[in-house]
């Protein structure tokens, strides 16, 4: 039995991760077409494409600028919620994490109705001043929305770096006579540098990966980036573009390797000993300033997150586009028409739920035996498999999607049966894509789990099944719930992979919102966006509350 499991752990990644990517490479080299041998025709055509330099330039510009903005905002937010004594920190923390829970296309919709050319804010300004002050369109709008939606990455990393700093370092500086400002600048800040560097790489990679924002904002304003270009080559222009799309995907994949390369070079932050007594963190008293800071933080979150969501909600209640919303003409017609006029929405909801549930369960199940080996019986092969599992998530989603499409679209030899069009091909993309989350979930769980617990069970005479069911799993409930919710949410609102892979008979929610938006059904897509926001927030709030109640841990703080 052990051998069967081990072979599966080896064979499944080869078949479902390595083979599709290899296939992508061979298609781009023209191996699958008539000519024998390798040809660089597709790459040649790509180079001649007058669009390509602009597209690469757009992609890099957006990635670099949005990364800088995300870093700045994330670091500021982390300092404010972790190192000051401003009131209501728990609430601010949740709002700062919020953008990472929402799919980026929902943020795009919300932002357009908030600060777009005819958004709520410009409407107010027009009313108050008789003119608009700014006109965010095109590439700047993409940069802003991307910075907002990737800000939580920087926030979370910097926050955990700050919280890991042992209090006695700061105490030592204080005893030596440094003022709080000096302590902060010369002790705390330098210790966050590795986290900032990591956050920069992650934000950059996420920006290359993102499809929702350039698709919802970029396509209408004629700004093309690599992910939308691949999509358009496959979906927009029809036949004969597969080889070129594959070549483009290979180029994009190589570009996304830049951050991975640097990841290895980064100095990984200091490891602190986790003795009791070091855990207390030091916060800085802001005195009278704290209310000013609260005001600033409130405005900041109002402008970047809460305002857009409210704008989306208000628009979804308007009777028709361009008609100002008043209390008397407020209408739920668009919510109703989501169900009555568009049966596809109900189908999409069902499909996405099913996909998310199956992906979550399968990912967690498949990751279990590998994670166990990673923690308990590490070997070069196991480390290699762990690395392979991370590949589909490190590569941009559009590249993975295209690889899966090209690999599984053709009818199975000898039959007319193809995986394309149904749920299977989507699962073949979702499961490899989220596999690494499953592994991370279980490895963190096992890392804090003492093997003696299991052995105690064995000694007491319980079989392996009983031990897993009665001892191991209950201990892992927290991690399983957290990791599972993350995978579920990612799969439920997925757009990038499904935009290529969802056939006409099996649309996903993301694809439906996308097609509504391109069809100009802004009021309905705002309504659906609002529903998705509420669902996502409800689910994650429920899980957070459950986990917090479970932990019941209190933060210890000392003020300086």
């Amino acid at each position, binding site marked *: 039995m052990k051998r069967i499991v081990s072979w599966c752990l080896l064979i499944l990644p080869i078949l479902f991760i390595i083979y599709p990517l290899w296939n992508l490479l061979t298609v781009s080299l023209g191996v699958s077409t008539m000519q024998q041998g390798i040809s660089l025709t597709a790459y040649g055509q790509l180079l001649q494409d007058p669009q390509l330099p602009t597209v690469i330039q757009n992609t890099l510009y957006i990635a670099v600028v949005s990364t800088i903005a995300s870093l700045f905002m994330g670091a500021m937010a982390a300092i404010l919620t972790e190192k000051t004594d401003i009131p209501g920190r728990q609430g601010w923390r949740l709002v700062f994490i919020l953008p990472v829970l929402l799919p980026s296309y929902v943020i795009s919709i919300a932002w357009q109705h908030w600060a777009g050319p005819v958004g709520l804010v410009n409407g107010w300004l027009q009313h108050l001043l008789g003119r608009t002050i700014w006109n965010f369109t095109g590439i700047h709008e993409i940069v802003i929305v991307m910075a907002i939606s990737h800000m939580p990455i920087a926030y979370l990393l910097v926050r955990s770096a700050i919280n890991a700093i042992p209090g006695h370092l700061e105490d030592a500086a204080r005893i030596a006579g440094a003022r709080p400002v000096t302590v902060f600048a010369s002790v705390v800040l330098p210790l966050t540098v590795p986290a900032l560097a990591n956050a920069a790489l992650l934000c950059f990679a996420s920006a290359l990966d993102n499809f929702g924002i350039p698709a919802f904002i970029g396509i*209408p304003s004629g700004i093309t980036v690599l992910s939308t270009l691949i999509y358009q080559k496959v979906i927009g222009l029809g036949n004969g573009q597969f080889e070129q799309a594959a070549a483009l995907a290979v180029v994009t994949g190589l570009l996304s390797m830049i951050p991975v390369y640097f990841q290895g070079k980064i100095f990984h932050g200091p490891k602190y000993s986790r003795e009791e007594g070091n855990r207390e963190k030091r916060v800085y008293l802001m005195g009278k300033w704290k209310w000013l800071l609260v005001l600033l933080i409130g405005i900041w979150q109002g402008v970047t997150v809460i305002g857009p969501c409210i704008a989306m909600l208000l628009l979804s209640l308007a009777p028709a586009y361009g*008609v100002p919303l008043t209390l008397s003409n407020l209408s739920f017609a668009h919510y109703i028409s989501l169900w009555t006029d*568009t049966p596809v929405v109900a189908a999409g909801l069902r499909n996405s739920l099913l996909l998310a549930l199956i992906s979550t369960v399968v990912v967690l199940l498949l990751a*279990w035996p590998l994670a166990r080996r990673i923690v308990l019986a590490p070997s070069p092969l196991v480390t290699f498999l762990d690395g392979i599992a991370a590949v589909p998530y490190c590569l941009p989603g559009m590249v993975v999607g295209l690889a899966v499409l090209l690999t599984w679209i053709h*009818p199975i030899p000898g039959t007319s049966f193809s995986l394309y*069009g149904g749920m*299977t091909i989507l699962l073949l993309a979702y499961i490899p894509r989220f596999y690494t989350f499953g592994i991370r979930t279980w490895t963190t769980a096992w890392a804090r789990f003492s093997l003696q617990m299991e052995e105690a069970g064995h000694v007491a005479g319980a079989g*392996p099944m009983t031990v897993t069911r009665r001892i191991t799993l209950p201990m892992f409930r927290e991690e399983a719930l957290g990791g599972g919710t993350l995978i579920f949410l990612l799969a439920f609102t997925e757009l990038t992979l499904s935009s290529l892979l969802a056939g006409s008979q099996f649309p996903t929610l993301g694809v439906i919102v996308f097609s509504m938006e391109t*069809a100009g059904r802004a009021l309905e897509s705002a309504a659906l966006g609002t529903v998705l926001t509420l669902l996502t927030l409800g689910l994650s709030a429920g899980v957070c509350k459950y986990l917090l109640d479970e932990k019941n841990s209190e933060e210890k703080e000392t003020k300086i």
Partner: protein
Amino acid sequence: MIKPGKIQSLLLWLLFMTTILLAGCGAQQPAATTEKNGEISGKLQVYTSQPDSDISKLVAGFTKKYPQIQVEVFRSGTEEVIARMNTEMKAGKIGADVLFLADAPTFEALKVQNLLLDYQSGELKGVKQELLDTDHMYSPTKMIPIGIVINTNKVKELDKVDWNTLSESENKGQTVMPSPLYSGAAAYNLGIFRNQSELGWSYYEKLKDNQVMVVKGNGDVIKRVASGEKSFGIVVDFMAFNAVKQGSPVAFVYPKTGSAVITEPVGIVKTTQNAAAAKAFVDFVLSAEGQQLAVQQGYLPVNKDVNAPEGRQAAAALKILNAPIKKLVEQRDANKKDFTVLFGG
């Protein structure tokens, strides 16, 4: 040191079982036609570019008449529907039974590829002879002129608006139009304009110089004009009239120079497993009942015995721009390519 629990192997078995089951789900075999007691039944997949709300009302009317038929709809822009079909052909199976797309040249191209089923509906009596396909591969269902939608808060003199208004420098950056890479109507319009001496390809170049915005679909054009983001939009007429009805601050003008008119044909895919249901669907769209339904949704009917929507000019009263359909089909790909180069995709 660690014995792998039996649970692991059990889980893997479960996984394989689910994979096999799922593979089964992927292979949704189309239900073959069953005509019990003369009643048509089974599944019918329609690929269309009609707005969701319009097609769902049409389907509701159809299934009321044929309760045994389950209709499923896939909606996208015409060009994307075609791209989807090309992808499906690579997968070895076209999912559609019925195609209901923007314009005749699209169907001509499908006819050349031998993808359509020959069917002459009995409901074509009221349709003008010159609109019909001589090979009976597809049938026109409506008359949809393409004109200009105007935001009435921003523009007051509606009568003067013609195609040239959009390329005048005082209206720089004020026009939005759908992309011929997505919308069949826009692709048709481009084809027709290219063959008119007074407009031509240079008209598109002038629009580009005048900073026209290109969005994907016609609906998006309406949205941006209704919200006041843009003053003018090139768009299919019924969407604009429906926006007026809903209270959006817009008006629609048929330009004096003339309009390209798409006919939103319907056709049956040759590989259909349910030809009886597909034919019933085509008949229903063309029937007096189907035409009345279209009129209620703001379309000009193709059947001249059915009246235009209240307060609207009949199709016969409009100046229509034309070009030989063969030429339009031949030029389509080149048009799209030139458009991509000019506007950058």
